[in-house]
């Protein structure tokens, strides 16, 4: 069962809107304050990547309900330049360094599940899930 809400990312204000959406959903689903802050930070990172490196894209929040488990999935999709070497980006990025994909390994560590697909010239699709415990 999935209910999805999306924000189109075109400018920095949209990052704030995506954060707000994510925080609302997280609160609604019963995530605590600390997890709300974490989820929002993860959304920020992904939305900012779209804004800075793809120019535009979509950030969606799914409410998940699978086998009695409640969760939240962040989906970040763009049709930007894509990531030529995903292995490198997922290894190298330091959250404090700025730069393309710097936050991706950080987002992966923060969430329970993380999937990335990217093709040069076609864009990037990132899905990250956090389950309520």
């Amino acid at each position: 069962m999935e209910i999805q809400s999306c924000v189109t990312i075109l400018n920095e204000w949209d990052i704030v809107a995506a954060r707000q959406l994510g925080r609302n959903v997280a609160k609604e689903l019963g995530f605590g304050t600390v997890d709300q802050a974490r989820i929002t930070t993860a959304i920020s990172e992904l939305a900012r990547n779209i804004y800075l490196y793809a120019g535009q894209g979509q950030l969606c929040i799914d409410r998940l309900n699978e086998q009695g488990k409640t969760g939240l999935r962040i989906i970040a999709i763009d049709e930007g330049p894509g990531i030529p070497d995903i292995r490198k980006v997922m290894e190298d990025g330091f959250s404090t360094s700025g730069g393309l994909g710097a936050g991706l390994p950080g987002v992966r560590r923060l969430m329970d599940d993380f999937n990335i697909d990217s093709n040069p010239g076609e864009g990037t699709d990132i899905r990250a899930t956090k389950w309520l415990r």
Partner: protein
Amino acid sequence: MDFREKMDEKFIGVLTDFMQSQSEESLYAAQQFSRLALEHKIPPEEIVNLQKSAMQELMPDLPPEVWHSFDILLEVMTAYGFAFREYQSLIDTQKEFKNEMEIASSVQETLLGTSVPTIDGLEIGALSVPAKQMNGDYFHFVHDGDHSVNVAIADVIGKGIPAALCMSMIKYAMDSLPEYRKDPSAVLGSLNRVVEQNVDDSMFITMFYGMYELKNHMLHFSSAGHEPGFFYSKQLDEFLDLEARGLLLGVDKDTTYKRYEQQVEIGDMIILMSDGVTECRTDEGFIERETLVSFINNYIDLPPQEIVNKIFRDLEKLQHFQLRDDFTLIIMKRVK
């Protein structure tokens, strides 16, 4: 440091704004602030101090217990500051290490000096990608005039630097055995003795050695415990295992290697690989050899080098871009 000087002011700004608005926008501003603070390596205890100073300025009349609570937080965060400084220094170590590994891997490439020969009537595709920076897989072609093309593919049990060191030894051992080059079983026999003598008892090497005779298109091959390759028969449109028995190099110095043969017709392919290709762990467990065959089938009409590249990309994705083992895949296709 511009940011350091304005840090207090900025923080107070963010804080006042949030106290008034409690808006997501001002929380976003707080995150932007923290991004800058991290970039400028401001340790966490200073953030707590910023908070305390800001509150002292904004709400000087709070009860003393509030200030005491900040002192405790400062004490706790100072220990986190230790970890934060260590983090900075680990990043430096890590960068230095990456840098060193890049040099090492280019030194390795020069030392191993592997290139794919261009041969009329035989198309060859080859790709070897290390799981970490250094490769413990190795492949090597020797093009012996009109007579034959010899191909070696090897895998040190183990990965990374130790494996790479071993591999450079194997390379020199191969270079110093030119007289045996033509006979797969003799080559493996000699290398086995070298490995047995020079290498740690815990290190073993698997190797497939093939000699492709250009005149009669016969492949002679032997294997030292190496992952079996495939033979694709165009006529049957079928993939057969290139089965060959033999003990790993370095186990028993007196072992011998049997020599096998395979006739190659136009359109047939010889597919060699290291176990990193099949031992590719996905969400559903290791892929099966049949899965690999189906991948190859998808691209069967492309030139061998493209097949090899596409299969690597597919398997990389299946593993979420985290290779567990070095990957080496070679495809040789007789085209006329």
